[in-house]
């Protein structure tokens, strides 16, 4: 479903609408420029660049748009963007390692860095695909704290997750999907009680989707 929103796959029918504008049929970079940003399940990063550069690149996309030939100033003299990137790297706890090659980071660190890459764009809608999948309990909790902190800043997030611990510690609104249909929707308290959810939850294949405000 996230693939449809960000323009990787075309929907079989229907359309994706965000903020009154149709996203369907738009190119990925156009959708990003409209403020819809995604964190992937397997980290999509720039392995050959440094951690700092990984985070600075999206900031340029936000500031300069989809294409601009910016060769007059050197990267080092882009103080504003570098400071912002440093700030966000402190938030996700990667500041100390900002000059490392991103490819050399552990998987969990890569995901946190990818989150930083998305946060620096101040997205209007942030899509998270199983942000804690494959993480240790410790990393999961770190991530939850981080997401709570972002939540406090007031940005809309859609999280796809089947770890109930994560879902219920973060969500304001939950939609439960099973077999491509929404079987329950609403506040966490009500969804928890829903019989259908209990059934699907115990039955196996299921996914939860939630939106927090």
């Amino acid at each position, binding site marked *: 479903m996230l693939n449809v929103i*960000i323009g990787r796959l075309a929907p079989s029918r229907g359309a994706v609408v965000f903020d009154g504008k149709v996203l369907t049929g738009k*190119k*990925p*970079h156009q959708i*990003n*420029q409209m403020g819809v*940003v*995604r964190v*992937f399940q397997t980290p*999509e*990063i*720039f*392995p*050959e*660049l440094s951690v700092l*550069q990984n985070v*600075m*690149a*999206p900031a*340029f*996309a*936000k500031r*300069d748009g*989809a*294409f*601009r*030939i*910016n*060769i*007059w*100033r*050197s*990267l*080092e*003299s*882009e103080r504003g963007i570098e400071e912002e990137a440093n700030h966000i790297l*402190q*938030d*996700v*706890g*990667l*500041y*100390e*390692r900002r*000059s*490392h090659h991103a490819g050399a980071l552990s998987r969990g660190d890569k995901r946190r860095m990818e989150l930083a*890459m998305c946060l620096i*764009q101040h997205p209007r809608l942030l899509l998270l695909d199983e942000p804690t999948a494959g993480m240790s*309990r*410790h990393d999961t*909790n*770190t991530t*939850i*704290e*981080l997401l709570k*902190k972002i939540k406090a800043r007031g940005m809309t997030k859609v999280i796809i997750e089947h770890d109930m611990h994560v879902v219920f510690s973060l969500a304001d609104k939950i939609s439960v999907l099973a077999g491509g249909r929404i079987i329950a929707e609403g506040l966490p308290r009500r969804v928890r009680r829903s019989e259908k959810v209990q059934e699907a939850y115990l039955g196996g294949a299921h996914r939860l989707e939630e939106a927090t405000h």
Partner: protein
Amino acid sequence: MDLFNLPRRDWITFGLFALVVVTMPIWLTPLGASYPGLLQKFAIFAIFAIGFNILFGLTGYLSFGHAAFLGVGSYTAVWSFKLLTMDALPAIMFAVIVSGLFALVIGYLSLRRTGIYFSILTLAFAQMCYNLAYSVLTPITNGETSLQLTLQDPRVIDSALAARPEGLPSASIFGHVFDGFEGFYFCAALLLIAFFIALKIFSSPFGMMLRAIKSNQTRMNYTGFDTKPYALTAFVISGMYAGLAGALLAVTDPLAGAERMQWTASGEVVLMTILGGVGTLIGPVIGAWLIKYFENIFSAFNEQVLTRFFSFLPPEITEPVVTISSKFVGEGWHLTLGLIFVLVVVFLPGGIMEGVRRIGALFRRTTPPSAPAARPAAPTIQPAE
């Protein structure tokens, strides 16, 4: 001023590079390579390789048809000599513009594909240019005899300004004809400008975008970048570098032949870049110098030279040594070049610059390491438990 906005580190690189280039006639003398014709080639092919590296080294798009832009640059420059004036500057300007336009068209089409499909598209376009230059386009290219200056050339501007000289004129700048090492210093000046622009690109946000395209193009798209125009800009810039190199070839010797566009010429610049070190600033230059040095110096060695060279050895050893080493020079210089390719890539993945880096690291190991990795991370968000 933004134009000269470069980190200190880059200014040092530039200063050292300029010093090396300007003193080439001196330090190449013991190596037997200090004559204007070869030095000009060193400068010109360094420009070609630097430009190629902006595309291949930064974006990762491997073009196999870059010689086409070199050829187009040469033809344009010679036509500028024939029609307008023998002054080098307009010729260079036209050559850069025309090859840039060529690169725009070919790049626009070729960049619709990636990886090897892109490489073959560029190769196909270049081979078409080459084959057409030999056949249908002979009115423009003069086919196998190469495009040359003739006594009948109009040279509109020159004729208007002064009486026609006797015989064939040579390329000049503001009426001053190059003499001795002046031709080399003219090429060297352009090499320094080209190197400076490459430095700017490498250290700019634009350069980082190009590296990011090489690293993960999908991510670039989802990060909100339109990667096509970025890659196309890099393609056009490197095409213009090739055009500049082609124009300089015509300035130093006003003649343009189609063989400059053949795939072997495109392959040569690929090899120069990989040999020196893809994606490094200096590497392609070293690669270009090395290959041109072998081509011109090693191929000129013969047994007499070798006998003289090995004359310090006892006479009974000299003869077998000369016989064996003669297989690697003169006609056999290709063999040496092939062996160097194999040895470099086996022992120095990453090219010659990788070797330089390793030697540098060896020296640095004597000082205490200041690796930031050694320090523990201090995240601002502590675990909740």
